[in-house]
């Protein structure tokens, strides 16, 4: 009885130590390592640079329109938040009335995004990224159109953090979003679809 107790105890300690050791190594390396080979990172750099330049131009435009509106402060009135969102959305839409798919996600940028997404999906991180995308709340049939608002009340799919680690960093005004197989660039305050890469997410 006592022997069995000790044996169970030792097995427990061994297992917890083994698990902890495995998890510790795995998680810390995940945090630090970019799954994209250095050679490929260099190849994709030009496309990402072009993308970042376009994003910065967009953010300048965003700011130029936002200053025309009264500054939105925190409020107890949701209608004030909604009104500011709609007013900003309209101003930006007017300011880039000819916006179209590919203005920000240029062909070179699309190639770079394609490369890093494919490499990530084929890496050890692929299953977790895939699981995150599949765990999303079901989305209704919807159309995503550049320079149109993201539909009100439609849930968001979490952008897998592994992808956020390797995608170009964005200014606070914009975020990446995933809708089914599309990658979006979304203006957060204006709730506006800035650009989209259709079908890039497997």
């Amino acid at each position, binding site marked *: 009885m006592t022997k069995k107790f000790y044996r169970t105890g030792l097995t427990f300690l061994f297992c917890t130590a083994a698990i*902890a050791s495995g998890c510790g190594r795995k998680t810390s390396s995940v945090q630090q390592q970019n799954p994209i080979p250095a050679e490929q990172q260099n190849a994709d750099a030009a496309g990402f640079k072009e993308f970042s330049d376009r994003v910065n131009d967009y953010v300048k435009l965003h700011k130029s329109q936002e200053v025309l509106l009264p500054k939105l402060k925190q409020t107890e009135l949701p209608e004030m938040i909604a009104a500011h969102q709609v007013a900003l959305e309209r101003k930006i839409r007017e300011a880039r009335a000819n916006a179209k798919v590919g203005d920000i996600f240029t062909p070179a940028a699309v190639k770079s995004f394609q490369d890093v997404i494919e490499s990530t999906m084929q890496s050890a991180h692929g299953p977790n990224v895939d699981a995150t995308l599949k765990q999303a709340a079901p989305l209704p049939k919807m159309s995503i159109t550049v320079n149109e608002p993201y539909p009100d009340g439609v849930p968001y799919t*979490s952008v897998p953090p592994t992808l956020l680690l390797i995608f170009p960093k964005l200014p606070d005004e914009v975020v990446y979003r995933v809708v089914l197989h599309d990658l979006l660039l979304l203006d957060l305050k204006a709730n506006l679809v800035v650009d989209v890469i259709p079908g890039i997410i497997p």
Partner: protein
Amino acid sequence: MRAKYIQRRAFLAIVCSIIFGAAFSVLAAQDFKFPLTQDSVRFAVIGDMGTGDAAQYQTAQKMIDSRVGFPYDFVIMLGDNIYGGSKSKDFEQKFQVPYKPLLDAGVPFYACLGNHDNPNERQYKPFNMGGESYYTYKKGNVRFFVLDSNYMDPKQLAWLESQLKSSPASDWKICYFHHPLYSSGRFHGPATDVRQVLEPLLIKYGVNVVFSGHEHVYERVHPQHGIYYFTEGSSGELRPNNLNKTAVTDKGFDTDRTFMLVEIAADKMYFQTLSRAGAVIDSGIIPKQPRTPIQ
């Protein structure tokens, strides 16, 4: 050499935290009672509540009633605060009306963003987000870290690390965000990609407790790396019989709406989970884990 030394220390700290975690696992209280000590931190926990339907209202009413016997000072919201839209009437029907007695009594709510929330909710003053999608605040000896698990980008992770680093070991560290790192829910399951980037920080800096929503059930999992995880995603929504209890499940409930009451008094956290009907679903006392941040 130094890297090896740090690795060894990290390994030892993780093993110790697991062993202590097992030793100090939740003490199931047969005759559970909140101590209601003078300087304790008392709060309620709700998640996935913003439906505006009768079930949300009934659960809210039970939560309001429970304040008579357990006078909590604030409420934490685990996301999906407002389902289905962000018009004025949505805020009214799904937040202002059901929780009116609490709002009138000056009970503050501290929200995080769920996948159904418009990010501009951060500008809604009663959610106390300070205009940010992730933020921190302190109540007594408890530091809360409120995260946006919809978008766990390097900037947010760097912010969290700097905040955790500057938080003294004597404080309780509680994180809350929408997507659970561990879950036995059938519908979504655990957010493993978020876990990969977030959990190392929670372990490294000695986070004690994590609350999440997203799965429309209640679940308390066995401590993972010494951290206690709760999923409270059924304060409005519910996915009946959706819990597929696994090895990580310590306690689960998926047949009615629930909310939690929590009191942190010195180095103990007392919690009770109640159903919409007022039945006690779970309760216990968690001693503050003797966890030292790894430098």
